[in-house]
């Protein structure tokens, strides 16, 4: 059984349109689960339901065998890191972090010890007396994380915590978050719209769209075996065709799942050769763009427009006739 279970959660503000519809999700103990999806897909809403900041109109949420559906926010003991960090501007870093402990009537000396320990883990020693205004974005982020962790929460919730940082700092912070999460072995839910960020730190990824979960799997599984067209597009597949078309053009023989109706392939997985290339489909280069480490071609073929990325030395000009190869093991079939 999972550590946390969301079952058939419905969220609606006007009882007509559902922000979340019959959503079920498992949170495994000690793992980092990411909610990934385009903006407006309901990922932040899901997180806020878990936090207790939004009341679902239907469904249940159990954690560690206890029904949490109607437990009030302040009695849940979950740590939450907000997108804006939400540090208390009038309190010093120390008082910000100690906030939760003071509410729990922890003794002065114990507070100092625990705050000191968590600040060390989060890498913000020496900033105790500063105010949030005097910290950089990355430091604020760490303070927000320390404040959420010091109360020893049953669950750590992170709402797009890296979206306000610059590119370099994001990379650094996501590694830090992963390290801290593993070190403390805390079950976490992480909301993001950045695919790379999500895949690099998650144990499980739930891809969401329109208030529903499209696929929930390990990052590797999602990357190599997307379950739907939406997920496939999201993880970088650009070329989609119907199985009928592919069979007709002899791209695949009959040895595949008969339920499949669609198939797809990534631009970089298509093999590009000149017109003499055997086992191939002919095409004409229409657009060429330079991507730095590869050229990307839009090739007109009997299948329609196909996007190909090639890092080979041979460069094809616009108008050139080329041969495209579709390796069997790189093709993904969708139902």
């Amino acid at each position, binding site marked *: 059984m999972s550590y946390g279970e969301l079952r058939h959660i419905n969220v609606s503000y006007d009882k007509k349109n559902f922000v979340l519809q019959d959503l079920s999700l498992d949170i495994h103990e000690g793992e980092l689960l990411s909610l990934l999806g385009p903006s407006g897909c309901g990922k932040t809403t899901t997180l806020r339901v878990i936090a207790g900041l939004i009341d679902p109109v239907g469904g249940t949420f159990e954690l560690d065998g206890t029904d949490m559906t109607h437990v009030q926010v*302040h*009695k849940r003991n979950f740590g939450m890191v907000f997108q804006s960090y939400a540090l208390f501007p*009038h309190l010093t870093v120390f008082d910000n972090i100690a906030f939760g402990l003071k509410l729990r009537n922890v003794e002065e000396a114990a507070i100092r010890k625990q705050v000191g320990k968590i600040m060390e883990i989060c890498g913000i020693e020496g900033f105790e007396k500063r105010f949030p205004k*005097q910290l950089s974005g990355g430091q604020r982020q760490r303070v927000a994380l320390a*404040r959420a962790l010091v*109360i020893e929460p049953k669950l750590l*919730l992170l709402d797009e915590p890296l979206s306000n940082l610059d590119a370099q700092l994001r990379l650094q912070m996501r590694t830090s978050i992963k390290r801290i999460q593993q070190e403390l072995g805390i079950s976490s839910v992480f909301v993001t719209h950045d695919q790379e960020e999500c895949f690099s730190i998650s144990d499980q990824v739930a891809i969401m769209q329109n208030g529903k979960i499209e696929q929930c799997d390990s990052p590797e599984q999602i990357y190599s075996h997307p379950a739907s067209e939406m997920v496939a597009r999201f993880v970088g597949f650009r070329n989609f065709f119907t199985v009928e078309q592919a069979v007709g053009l002899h791209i695949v023989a009959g040895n595949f799942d008969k339920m499949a109706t669609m198939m797809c392939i990534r631009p970089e997985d298509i093999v590009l050769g000149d017109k003499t290339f055997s086992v191939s489909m002919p095409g004409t280069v229409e657009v060429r763009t330079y991507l730095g480490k590869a050229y990307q071609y839009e090739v007109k073929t009997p299948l329609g427009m196909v996007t190909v990325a090639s890092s080979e030395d041979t460069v094809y000009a616009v108008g050139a006739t080329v041969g495209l190869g579709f390796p069997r093991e790189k093709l993904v079939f969708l139902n």
Partner: protein
Amino acid sequence: MYKHRLVTIVAWLCFAFIFLPLILIVVTSFNSADSISLPLEGFSLQWFVKVFRSRSLVQSLKNSLVLALVSSTIGIVFGLLSSIALVKRPGKISTILLSIFLSPSLIPGIVIGYVLFHFLVVSLQLPLNLALILGHLLVVMPYSVRIICASLKDIDESLEEAALTLGCPPSRAFMKVVLPNLRPAMISAFMLSFINSFNNIPVSMYLKGPGMNTLPYAMMNHIEYNYDPTVSALSVMLMGLTLVLMIAMDWSMSAQRLKSKAAQGE
């Protein structure tokens, strides 16, 4: 930078227009001549002494201070409560209500005074002191609402949510994390309210009872009958008081900054 002589001259003229009368008042208040006039005859503090000898001026000063203090304090409390309601429930109704809250600052004071006189004093037969306080409350409320609303909108909504997730009961979250961050706004709202109530003539004129005077009104009365520098002396004292208040406010606002600077220096 582009500089034109005419611009400089106009700037100096404006400057002179603002400060010459003030300087004149300060200078004449120390003059021994018994009318507000130049040239100076000699140095004297007699007009300052005379201010405190005048029972009507001292009494009206007390009245004005109490009135400003009471109406500003109530104004801050009401202003805070209405701001919370307006900001936390945004929508069409809130926008309309906000305009209503701000409207007394757009309606001429003389109209407010007259209307309140009819409504509170003639129709409702309220005691005059109460009517006066209510009238001033109406004058100062727009300042509280405007300043506190603006500041409240700037405060991150997730602050309260963060407090909740950390275990703070909803009833205490606002007091613990939002209110402390509204302090600078509440201080400036109080100062503005105080000054506006203290200065107000039109509303007080209608609502003050017989034999009861506010300071601006008493000063006008005084000049009408004696054109001596007593009022100059009183004005100088008020200017001094304002200056002290402004410095104090500035200092209290920057105290936080200084404190944090010290922390940074460590």
